[in-house]
């Protein structure tokens, strides 16, 4: 409960309001997220209009207006669905409050922009920034969104991502994913003795923080869907066990008192349980722990390796991988462990199934003929599509809107230890727009947070 209160405190400074006076039209322009090949929508993102004489910590209000525009541009560009029109092409750069509310659509049409974002940023008497923006349908000559935020200057990045989310949602009809974070494993050091640290960053790589110091080997972090918590694997005292990490206060605690190694943890959709594997006497099965009562329930009991469990968003099912059929394949069972059914029947080995937040797909890692792939299939195993391929692609995680998948890619190394670079990548559900995330060091095991609301 206390965690939730703390979480809300962060949100309170950001107050959004609709700019009511202007009617919001029905969109004439729509971005189709299902067409990876489609030409990205040309959009002009004008710097937020601000007074350069109003100085706050970190620069003038005008500076903040430009920074926010830059972050919005970067977010929209990275999605692959938008093409940001170069500011150098803008025809009328002379601004006033009046021109913001009555854009000359012909000027924007002339440079090929189909949508326009403009707005202003002003300093309030209490030191907060008032940020407002409007999204315009240039061809229809209508306003599509008008939103106003109040925030302390230090939250300017979150405001930028909230604006990006609002634009993305208005133009695609899908919820955004820019106001999110990624927890992952930062890697450094030689191939034979990698130092691995828990790290967290915004989805665009900014606000990067190391959470552990590298003393203990740590692996496979996952976000709680409801609290500022991470579950992960740590080799404290050479005893690999599943831990819980509180992002607010940095506290770490071991989950349960299992005799064997616990690993492959993941939260239930309501955040109240952690599902994981225990390896005991050479056999790995799936268990679930209720976080409040710490009650443990065993879900599978088979001599095979049962691991990498993931709940369906409605909590009714669990998907996992098992080699009970001879090789690693993906299975689905009821959340009480009953009705175990194999769903992957393609060529190769299938592993690390992760249920989409929308429930319609399961992402996986596939190994076939010396290559690794990230792919998706329907929960009944049909409709398999491969999205990426390399020497080693592994560990998909979903953006909260179920449109983008993040994973890690490791390059081969040679006998002198050269190579072996490991990085986090994103790919659109269409299989297009593959992009590398920028991280300070090598990176693996990404896990996407839910929307920070």
């Amino acid at each position, binding site marked *: 409960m206390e965690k939730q209160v703390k979480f809300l405190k962060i949100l309170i400074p950001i107050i959004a309001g609709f700019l009511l006076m202007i009617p919001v039209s029905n969109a004439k322009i729509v971005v189709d997220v299902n067409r990876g090949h489609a030409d990205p929508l040309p959009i002009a993102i004008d710097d937020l209009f601000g007074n350069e004489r109003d100085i706050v910590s970190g620069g003038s209000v005008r500076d903040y207006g430009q920074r926010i525009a830059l972050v919005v541009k970067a977010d929209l560009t990275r999605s692959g669905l938008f093409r940001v029109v170069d500011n150098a092409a803008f025809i009328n750069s002379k601004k006033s409050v009046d021109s913001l509310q009555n854009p000359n659509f012909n000027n924007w049409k002339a440079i090929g922009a189909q949508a326009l974002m403009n707005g202003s940023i002003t300093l309030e008497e209490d030191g907060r920034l008032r940020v407002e923006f409007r999204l315009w349908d240039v061809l229809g000559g209508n306003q599509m969104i008008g939103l106003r935020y109040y925030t302390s200057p230090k939250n300017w990045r979150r405001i930028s991502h909230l604006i990006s989310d609002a634009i993305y949602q208005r133009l695609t009809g899908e919820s955004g994913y820019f106001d999110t974070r990624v927890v992952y494993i930062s890697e450094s050091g030689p191939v*034979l003795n990698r130092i691995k640290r828990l790290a967290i960053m915004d989805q665009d790589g900014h606000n990067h923080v190391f959470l552990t110091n590298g003393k203990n080997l740590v692996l496979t972090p996952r976000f709680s869907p409801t609290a500022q918590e991470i579950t992960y694997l740590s080799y404290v005292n050479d005893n690999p066990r599943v831990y819980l990490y509180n992002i607010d206060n940095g506290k770490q605690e071991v989950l349960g008192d299992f005799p064997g190694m616990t690993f492959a943890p993941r939260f239930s959709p309501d955040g109240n349980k952690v599902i994981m594997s225990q390896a005991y006497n050479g056999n790995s099965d799936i268990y679930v722990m209720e976080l409040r009562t710490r009650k443990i329930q065993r879900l599978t009991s088979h001599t095979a*390796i049962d691991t990498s469990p993931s709940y369906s968003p409605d909590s009714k099912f669990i998907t996992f991988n098992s*080699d009970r059929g001879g090789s690693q394949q993906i299975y689905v069972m009821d959340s009480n462990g009953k009705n175990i059914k194999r769903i992957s029947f393609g060529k190769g080995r299938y592993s690390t199934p992760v249920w989409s937040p929308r429930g319609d797909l399961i992402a996986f890692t596939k190994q076939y003929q010396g290559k690794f792939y990230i792919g998706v299939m329907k929960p009944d195993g049909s409709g398999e599509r491969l999205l990426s391929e390399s020497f080693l692609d592994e560990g998909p995680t979903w953006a909260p809107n179920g449109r983008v998948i993040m994973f890690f890619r490791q390059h081969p190394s040679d006998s002198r230890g050269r190579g072996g670079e490991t990085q986090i990548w994103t790919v659109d559900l269409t299989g297009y727009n593959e992009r590398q995330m920028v991280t300070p060091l090598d990176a693996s095991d990404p896990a996407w947070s839910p929307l920070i609301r």
Partner: protein
Amino acid sequence: MLKLITNTKYWVLIGSVLLLSACANSNTNKDALDNTPTEPAVVEEEVVVASPPEVVETMDMGTQSSLDAAADEALVYFAYDRYDLSAEARASLQSQAAWLQAQSSVNVVVEGHCDERGTREYNLALGDRRANSVKNYLVALGVDPARVHTVSYGKERPMVMGSGETSWAKNRRSYTRVN
């Protein structure tokens, strides 16, 4: 100083002081004292070269290097995605078991490792299978199970660099570590 050096009496004195300080670092003082030389040149030689404590190491039989020497570097190799023991692995583990029977006060940790050609979580489970496969065989050969712990590192701690079958075959292993 030149005068002193020509005097044999002083040389012996200096030599004894140096010998005493050398004694603090080695257990070979008895031999050195018995052979206290009378020639100055010889004294200098003997004192400067302090013999390394080789004796100490080979006399303690419960060390990692003794296990490594007795049983193929304490390593056992596995086939791809397998955890059963080959004839070679069994022979090597018989040496480990014999060593463990002789060193009844020593406990060991069996580390299970995998090559990089598998997903992280599956490999953690596979490494656990390999470590336990080794442990079970040692126990079957009469080793007290309480003396053998297991830990899986999955694909996290390769022994050999390189992304090819030669390297991978070496990384699919168990290592028995003296605890």
